[in-house]
């Protein structure tokens, strides 16, 4: 297909188109992640969650967004007006910019930079300016404390998270997001199988980076009211919110690309075909998933109490049916189209699975205290990630020099790293038992 489209269009028009699609869809997606969060939370807390706006609360995000749009816009007295205005925009802008280098599929990528990962990390770290400036410009103690906490937290955990990524990079041998996924395709296994410890480090680090529970100290409700967002309301607040969820998707995308095989479907190495066709067995899974979702929604239609809710539910069922059809039709289309559509599906599915993990932790764990957070970061995660990087490097050398199977050598080194982790965790117990007065922090 690629040869049909002139190079000029491929180079300049398509990326712009992709960019527009991302910017248009992302806020919607973020809204639905919020709905998912509320539904998951409700499920874990023996409640129903939003049920009124649309069937099963399906229209809740739209209603929330509208409400925030028409709310009064308050700027506190003595606030730095320009910075106050600038901060949330910066926060969202940087999060959106990071999507430029994320491959949602082999085709759907705005720009395949050769330093893609570095670009994403750099840009998403700039987002912290949005939080720090917002906290400072609000002219409120709670905001300031929240901003300080956020800055300190990001600096501490980005090191560990970055080193966690390095372990996967050693196996990939490239910084381009596209080549990293392709490297996993060539090896036939996702990198999570090679560096589970690295994945764990990145998981913890990414939760801390996005200020999610149990590391949500910058916006800890019971302590700092809403942290850096305390003085924000209306649409500015919505922008911060959007920024937070967009950031969650960025870190989830990074994890997906580096550890979970990006757009590749699970079981990459199996290529069994349907007899007599070129359709692979496992490729019908997305279509089946949507078919199942459509059937489930259809079953719920008659149970809706109000006519309009029945109509919306039926529309959702129809949408699932259409998506199922698209997934099925893609099987018969050219390989490029097929890889693009199914790639986007698997990529988003993994991103959502990763975000589900975030939600799960949030509703299970209490919040860390600031000094404990710092201790976990500096005394456990950073040493562990350094050991992990060295161990991974050794594993690569061993497998290349002595011909040991890469997976075997990787796993042996990972077990050793795990031993170090246990030792570090045991050592971490000591200061926790001491009096809190001697704890370092701030």
């Amino acid at each position, binding site marked *: 297909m690629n040869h049909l489209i002139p190079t000029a269009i491929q180079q300049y028009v398509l990326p712009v188109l992709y960019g527009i699609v991302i910017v248009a869809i992302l806020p919607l997606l973020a809204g639905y992640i919020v709905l998912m969060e509320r539904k998951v939370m409700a499920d874990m807390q023996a409640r129903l969650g939003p049920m009124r706006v649309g069937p099963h609360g399906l229209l809740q995000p739209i209603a929330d967004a509208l409400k925030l749009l028409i709310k009064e816009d308050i700027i506190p007295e003595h606030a730095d007006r320009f910075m106050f205005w600038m901060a949330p925009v910066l926060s969202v802008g940087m999060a959106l910019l990071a999507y430029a280098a994320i491959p949602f599929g082999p085709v759907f990528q705005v720009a395949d930079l050769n330093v893609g990962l570095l670009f994403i990390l750099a840009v998403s770290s700039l987002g912290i300016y949005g939080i720090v400036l917002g906290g400072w410009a609000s002219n409120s103690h709670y905001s300031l404390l929240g901003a300080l906490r956020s800055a300190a937290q990001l600096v501490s955990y980005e090191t560990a998270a970055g080193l966690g990524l390095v372990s996967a990079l050693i196996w990939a041998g490239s910084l381009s997001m596209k080549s990293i996924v392709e490297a996993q395709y060539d090896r036939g296994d996702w990198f999570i199988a090679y560096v589970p410890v690295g994945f764990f480090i990145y998981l913890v680090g990414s939760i801390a980076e996005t200020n999610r529970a149990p590391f949500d100290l910058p916006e800890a409700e*019971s302590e700092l009211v809403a942290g850096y967002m305390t003085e924000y309301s209306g649409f500015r607040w919505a922008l911060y919110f959007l920024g937070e969820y967009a950031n969650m998707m960025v870190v989830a995308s990074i994890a997906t690309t580096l550890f979970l095989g990006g757009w590749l479907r699970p079981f990459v190495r199996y290529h069994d075909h349907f007899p007599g066709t070129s359709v692979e067995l496992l490729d019908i899974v997305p279509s089946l998933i949507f078919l199942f979702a459509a059937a489930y929604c259809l079953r719920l239609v008659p149970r809706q109490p109000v006519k309009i809710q029945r109509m919306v539910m039926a529309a959702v069922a129809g949408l699932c049916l259409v998506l199922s059809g698209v997934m099925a039709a893609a099987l018969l289309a050219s390989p490029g189209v097929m890889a693009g559509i199914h790639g986007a599906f698997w990529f988003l599915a993994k991103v959502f699975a990763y975000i589900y993990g975030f939600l799960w932790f949030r509703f299970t*764990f209490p919040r*860390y205290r600031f000094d404990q957070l710092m201790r976990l970061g500096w005394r456990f995660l950073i040493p562990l990630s350094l050991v992990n990087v060295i161990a991974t490097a050794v594993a690569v050398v061993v497998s290349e020099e002595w011909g040991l199977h890469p997976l075997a050598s990787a796993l042996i080194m990972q077990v050793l790293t795990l031993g170090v982790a246990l030792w570090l965790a045991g050592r971490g117990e000591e200061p926790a038992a001491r009096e809190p007065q001697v704890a370092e922090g701030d």
Partner: protein
Amino acid sequence: MSEGRTNGSSVSTTVLGADEIILNMGPQHPSTHGVLRVKLKLDGERVIGSECIIGYLHRGVEKIAEHRSYQQFAPYVDRMDYVAAVSNGLGYCETIERLLGTEAPPRAKVVRTILTELQRIASHLLWLGTHALDIGALTPVFYCFREREEILKIFEKYCGARLTTHAFRIGGLQYETYDGFEQDVKRFCQNFDKKIDEYETLLTENRIWVGRTKGVGVLTAEDAVALGVTGPVLRASGVKWDIRKAMPYAAYDQYQFEIPTRGTGDTYDRYIVRMQEMRQSRLICLQAIENIPTGAIMARIGKVLKPPPGEVYHSIEAPKGELGYYVVSDGTTQPYRVRVRPPSFINLQAFDKMAKGSLVADVVAIIGTLDIVLGEVDR
């Protein structure tokens, strides 16, 4: 009144150092449990001084008592510790009964004991949920409210009200127990042990929970006694003092139960003590429900109460500590003076001692662990 300041170091008048800021927590703040205002002097995030400012919920309950008849005042006491209204009512009714020189009939005493212990569980559940919420665990609060709802349903079936129940009357009970009361209580108590296990799986051995509560807000036994702290806060510091055992009232002398104590007096100990207290309350209810005596539910005291001139101090073990009533009668139908010794108010005095040197995050843990209700602190 000196009640406006509950502790010595007046934060507002001290001179600030270069790195110090004053943070006003409350009276509108998500985790001050009502309208408590805490002025914190911070060095970074470390608390170097604190001052509790109370009185935002002052309604003059004690003064109102002087202008109501003895029975008319009974519903007012429900509004002090509004999450443990039944306990408040029990304390007041028993005090007036002592003033009158009478006693509730045995059946009334046992029913009172059952309802009061259920109320203790309900109050502790509310504490657990909100305390966990303050420390950042979002889920336990919903589990706690699920069980608390069962208790409130029993109250509702018994007397028609869920929160401010006015369940007891001076001299006994207004209402006979409803059909199925025993089964309801028994079913709740039998299931409740598993529910406590459920809360404990979420918290007791959770590394983050232990880290957030161990060694936080330590109150030594000497300090606790010197400050007059009572209830679970005192027992967590290692002092075995429970009015249900020391000066039995209602029907507590008939039942076997333990007084859980711990040694360190930190937030974790207070958590453990309250969890065990819920288990003990459950056992008391199970014992009491097996054998409710039959007979009258109201003593013969007449419609107009005119206690002989004199004074009485009587206290009970409310969920939060020693709840005492000091009532002076001048022989008329209205009390001359009613003074309440609220456990929350006295326990709150320990705040400054516990908070000094801790972090802002610990402050909410300490407010939570003291289990204060501002309706009772301010009255």
